[in-house]
């Protein structure tokens, strides 16, 4: 009989989580856990600070996705001060945000997650990295990736100041308007971005989709969960990264809920487990039924595949074509965790196309980019789709705008229930007879790397290394091995 191992919560000093694998006497995995810390420390830190400082402060939570926090925070301030930004400001914010989405997704596709497929999930550890990717796709492609990321980042600096910690969004608008010179450059960059995103889809098709072994892996039971999916959609239920309503579909793809972010607490509740500090969000109306998938379980997912599952389509034509192609092959909704990479590439295309559309929109040259707030603040809630999923910032302040309470619901928190399922299922499916080799461990890691988990920067993982320590226990609780 399986003995439940209760693991003491990780300390703040350990900081960045671990995987725990429990083996029975035959050496088969009977249970696997994933532990990561949460952001409560940050929320406490926010108390007593001026809300208007939050876009700069929260952007420091994560060096990988600062723009997502910056934008969610800025939108929360719009709401806090009851001020609607001018059209130009909204469009420039969306443009800026799509630049970030393109750049961040490219980071994951080529550097963080892509090597699993481009180089191969069971390739030698020393080759399963970005250098291995370059060996496989060629130096010219590598230079193209680095060059595109650099161009995007330089443009973001021109529009918003620092890339990593932008000084861009302010309540009611943005800090400065665009000029014709920047817009001219943006138009060129928009064309390049679309070409780059389509090129990435071609790379993905040539290397991943044309390889039956990889396709079998993507659609294998080890990486499949039938859960609910959540994402922001526009008025036509198409994917939108910057704004919209939160839509949830059930495991059959049927709309389950659609709500404004102000109602998020009516739809999302949190479950606590004794072995981790992390709360497990679930759909309130379904309830917490444990670590199981299916229509009766409130576990849901965010992130690229969830966004596409939760929408009726993409907002731009080339992305829509790619979207239709994916679902024709996988069915909709797609429950395959590893299809997250494919969805990410499709989102790169939408981001690039939106950059091009907005760069050619004459409204972005309007010099009126801010409505100065005058209302007395009380509560502000903002939402964006971070690259890794729905990101909600919620502030409550006194009448001076000093924060009394803050709540940040980040993508990795939404996903943690499904990530736990993914690691457990992958480990049970792959680890048999006491064989725990590097290739198998990488395939377990792939289960969570697909989500690109991100919690206070801690869990971004580079293939080719074990990003979090793996603890292997016997059923009796004896620690057999720790792999760093």
């Amino acid at each position: 009989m399986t003995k439940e191992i209760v693991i003491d919560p990780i300390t703040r000093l350990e900081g960045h989580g671990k995987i725990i694998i429990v083996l029975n006497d035959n050496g088969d995995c009977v249970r696997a856990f994933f532990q990561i810390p949460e952001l409560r420390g940050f929320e406490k830190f926010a108390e007593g600070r001026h809300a208007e400082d939050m876009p700069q402060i929260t952007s420091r939570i994560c060096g990988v996705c600062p723009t997502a926090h910056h934008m969610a925070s800025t939108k929360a301030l719009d709401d806090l001060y009851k001020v609607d930004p001018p059209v130009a400001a909204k469009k420039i914010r969306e443009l800026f945000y799509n630049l970030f989405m393109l750049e961040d997704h490219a980071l994951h596709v080529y550097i963080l997650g892509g090597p699993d497929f481009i180089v191969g999930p069971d390739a030698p550890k020393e080759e399963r990295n970005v250098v291995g990717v370059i060996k496989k796709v060629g130096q010219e492609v590598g230079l193209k990736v680095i060059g595109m990321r650099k161009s995007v980042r330089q443009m973001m600096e021109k529009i918003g100041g620092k890339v990593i910690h932008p000084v861009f969004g302010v309540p009611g608008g943005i800090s400065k308007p665009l000029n014709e010179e920047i817009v001219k450059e943006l138009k060129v960059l928009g064309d390049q971005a679309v070409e780059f995103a389509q090129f990435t889809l071609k790379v993905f098709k040539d290397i991943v989709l044309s390889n039956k072994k990889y396709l079998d892996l993507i659609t294998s039971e080890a990486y499949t969960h039938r859960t609910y999916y959540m994402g922001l959609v526009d008025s036509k239920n198409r994917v939108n990264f910057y704004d919209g309503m939160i839509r949830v579909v059930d495991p059959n793809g049927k709309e389950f809920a659609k709500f404004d972010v102000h109602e998020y607490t009516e739809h999302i509740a949190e479950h606590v487990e004794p072995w981790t500090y992390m709360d497990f969000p679930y759909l309130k109306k379904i309830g917490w039924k444990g670590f199981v998938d299916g229509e009766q379980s409130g576990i849901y997912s965010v992130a690229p595949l969830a966004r596409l599952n939760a929408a009726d389509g993409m907002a731009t034509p080339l992305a829509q074509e790619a979207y239709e192609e994916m679902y024709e092959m996988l069915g909709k909704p797609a429950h395959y965790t590893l299809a997250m990479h494919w969805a990410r590439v499709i989102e790169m295309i939408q981001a690039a196309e939106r950059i091009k559309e907005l760069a050619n929109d004459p409204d972005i040259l309007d010099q009126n980019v801010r409505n100065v707030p005058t209302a007395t603040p009380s509560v502000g809630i903002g939402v964006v789709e971070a690259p890794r999923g729905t990101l909600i910032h919620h502030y409550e302040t006194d009448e001076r705008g000093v924060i009394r309470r803050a709540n940040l619901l980040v993508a990795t928190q939404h996903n943690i229930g499904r990530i736990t399922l993914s690691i457990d299922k992958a480990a049970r499916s792959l680890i048999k007879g006491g064989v725990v080799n590097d290739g198998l461990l990488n395939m377990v890691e792939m289960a969570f790397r697909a989500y690109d988990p991100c919690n206070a920067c801690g869990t971004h993982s580079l293939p080719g290394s074990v990003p979090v320590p793996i603890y292997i226990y016997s059923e009796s609780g004896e620690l057999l091995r720790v792999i760093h």
Partner: protein
Amino acid sequence: MPLILFLGNSLYAEDRIGLLVGEILKGRLEAEGFEVEILERIGYSLIDYIAGKDSVMIVDSIIGEYGEVKLIEDLKSFAAFSPKSPHYAGLPEAIELIKALNLPLPERILVLGIGVRDPYSIGEIPPELNARVGDIAEKVHREIRNVFN
């Protein structure tokens, strides 16, 4: 001209130490002929700064004791000291990437680690560490001069 990169995260109580030291030393080092950048960036984005330079010194926190300043010449050994932070999650890989792309790689890349006990907690700098910032900056300055003179 050697480039000195001071790294850290200003939201974190102790991980901000590289930034604080950088602020103290920036003017002095620039007057001595060094190029100085104070950044809150992660591994791969450092490529834009590192590629094409002759020599680079990276100053950031490592897990250790307050007041400790440690010169690390072998980047592969850096993981043993480094906090698990994306600041360095990609630095050795970033250098490998520069090599793989045949971009100009600096002849010397060194890390100057500043000891902190807890690089992960958000908050104000602990008074004990804050009281030593000036001394730490002097140690860092001496090390930089020793290395490059």
